[in-house]
């Protein structure tokens, strides 16, 4: 997959798209499942840590010791001190302050990307799984195209055309990583079509779309939740890579990725300015992956 791996999203192959739905286990129902999630201590700790970091980012204007872009000319590229806990960057801006503010943009963009991927993926998957036939063919063709382009390169090109309009970045990242949710929804729906409770709904005269939205989509969504959680960390890695390469979010707006871009130039003199943002990206990604694994154990494997 990824690779930054050069393509960052987990790649599904065109073959996995056409897996026989009968081989995919049915999602289990939700009763008492939350209890099982809390048994997985690693997942719970990860979730709490993520929420904590998110909270700090939200409260950035209150918590940050300095304004976001404030320049301290007496401390340029300085190490940790009483005034600046994590030192300052090459322009004399407080690293700790910018980390907190950077978290806002980093998390917001990753969240937005996942949202876009989910909306597009669920829509495409529902169309393919519910209508089948030529609609399915068209969606499959679209998936084939997206699996046959070097996604990361395309994302880089599109992001470079965004020229400072931040909202384009989640659109680009989400718009190129909807294939996995689409696949899960499609196979889920195809599988559920055969189920007795769906037949029962049908024989009770429940109309087509109501059948899909009320009865089929909710159980098919639980594996998507797992993908979304893990996808969040992938989206964060893509955004950070873009910003790190200088094609993502442009300064002075801080994200952890573009702070690292500046940090690398001054690696020798102020290593902390490069270490801290990357470490945060790593930690949050790790937390999302652990949370995703915990969710998967509960929602998909059912054991």
């Amino acid at each position: 997959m990824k690779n930054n791996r050069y393509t960052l999203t987990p790649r599904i192959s065109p073959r996995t798209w056409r897996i026989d739905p009968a081989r995919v286990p049915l999602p289990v129902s939700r009763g008492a499942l939350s209890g099982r999630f809390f048994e997985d201590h690693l997942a719970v700790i990860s979730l709490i840590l993520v929420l904590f970091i998110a909270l700090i980012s939200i409260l950035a204007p209150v918590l940050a010791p300095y304004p976001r872009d404030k320049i301290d000319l007496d401390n340029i590229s300085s190490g940790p001190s009483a005034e600046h806990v994590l030192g300052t960057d090459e322009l004399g801006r407080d690293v700790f302050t910018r980390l907190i503010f950077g978290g806002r943009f980093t998390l917001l963009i990753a969240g937005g990307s996942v949202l876009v991927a989910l909306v597009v993926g669920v829509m495409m998957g529902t169309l393919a799984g519910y209508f089948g036939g030529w609609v399915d063919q068209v969606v499959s063709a679209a998936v084939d195209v997206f699996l046959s382009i070097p996604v990361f390169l395309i994302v880089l090109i599109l992001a470079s055309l965004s020229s400072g309009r931040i909202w384009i970045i989640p659109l680009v990242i989400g718009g190129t990583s909807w294939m996995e949710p689409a696949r899960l929804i499609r196979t889920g729906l195809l599988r559920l079509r055969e189920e007795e409770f769906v037949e029962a709904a049908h024989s009770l005269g429940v109309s087509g779309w109501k059948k899909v939205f009320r009865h089929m989509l909710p159980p098919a969504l639980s594996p998507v939740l797992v993908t979304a959680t893990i996808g969040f960390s992938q989206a964060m890695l893509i955004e950070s890579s873009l910003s790190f390469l200088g094609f993502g979010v442009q300064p002075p707006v801080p994200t952890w990725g573009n702070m690292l871009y500046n940090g690398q130039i001054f690696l020798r003199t102020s290593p902390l300015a490069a270490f801290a943002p990357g470490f945060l990206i790593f930690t949050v990604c790790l937390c999302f992956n652990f949370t995703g694994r915990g969710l998967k154990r509960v929602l998909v494997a059912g054991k």
Partner: protein
Amino acid sequence: MKSYIFGKILRVIPLVILISVITFALLHLAPGGPVGIVAGNPKVSADDLSRLRESYGLDDPLPVQYLHWFKQVFLRFDFGKSYVNGRPVTAMIRERIPATLELMGSAFLLALIVSCVMGVFSALKRDSAVDHFFSAISVTGTSLPVFWFALMAIYLFSLRLGLLPAGGRETLAVPHSVLDRLHHLILPASVLSLTYLASWSRYLRAGLLDTFSGDFIRTARAKGLSERSVILKHALRNAVLPVLTVVVMQIPTLFTGAVITETVFAWPGMGRFFYEGMQRQDYSRVLGIVVISSLLIILFNFAGDILCLAVDPRIRPGRLAGGGKNA
């Protein structure tokens, strides 16, 4: 089987056309279109610009331009001249390929060997401390921002310890030597391989566990074969196949290289070539790489499919999805 392969090939044609349309659209999405970078230069007069546009055929209607472009790029593999220095893109790409193959090839090889060892040990000692440790490594590998990891590796091994060079492919102004090359290769190849082995070792572990529960493994054990031969001859051969198809499908990256790793380590390969093209808005170069890499991805996805069919008769079309317990 033959008709299946033929059908596959037929599917590829619309795919190539769609991809060519997307790439063409990208070319024209760029601000100012293909001559955007020249248009920004104050020394270029409106007259020059219109002559330039004419020479590129930019005043033709878009469908005509597209057809010309398609013929040139997809049928003759001529990606035009670089906007930066006027050299043919194909020649420039050819110069970059060896460095990329060197880096990606060694990273692949390293990842393959290590992930085999990790996968086999994890599967054999399921739920043991070793398994958990390898599992932790693999989760770490998928969460690690490569650019950060690479920077930290440079900081530690080059700046602090002074053991390994911080970047480049060889020491300049020194006669060419294999040892020097290897010395430069260690850091980027190790960093890059970590990202691959994270997923590959998991695939192998899952495949092995799946195989171990098969009837034929029980039979092999019941026949009194040594555990070693059961694992190496029977289980591993079956479990390695899904991993192999995953690896085959990633072969195209051998060509495109790793944009991030190559940029951080100043490695003169395709990834960095692409990155520099992006910085200088050299779209003929950038899109040339996108086109080649798309074609390679299509080719190797196809190869992966065929490989799967060739080694696993159970999934051949026309056969019921019966047989093994996983059907």
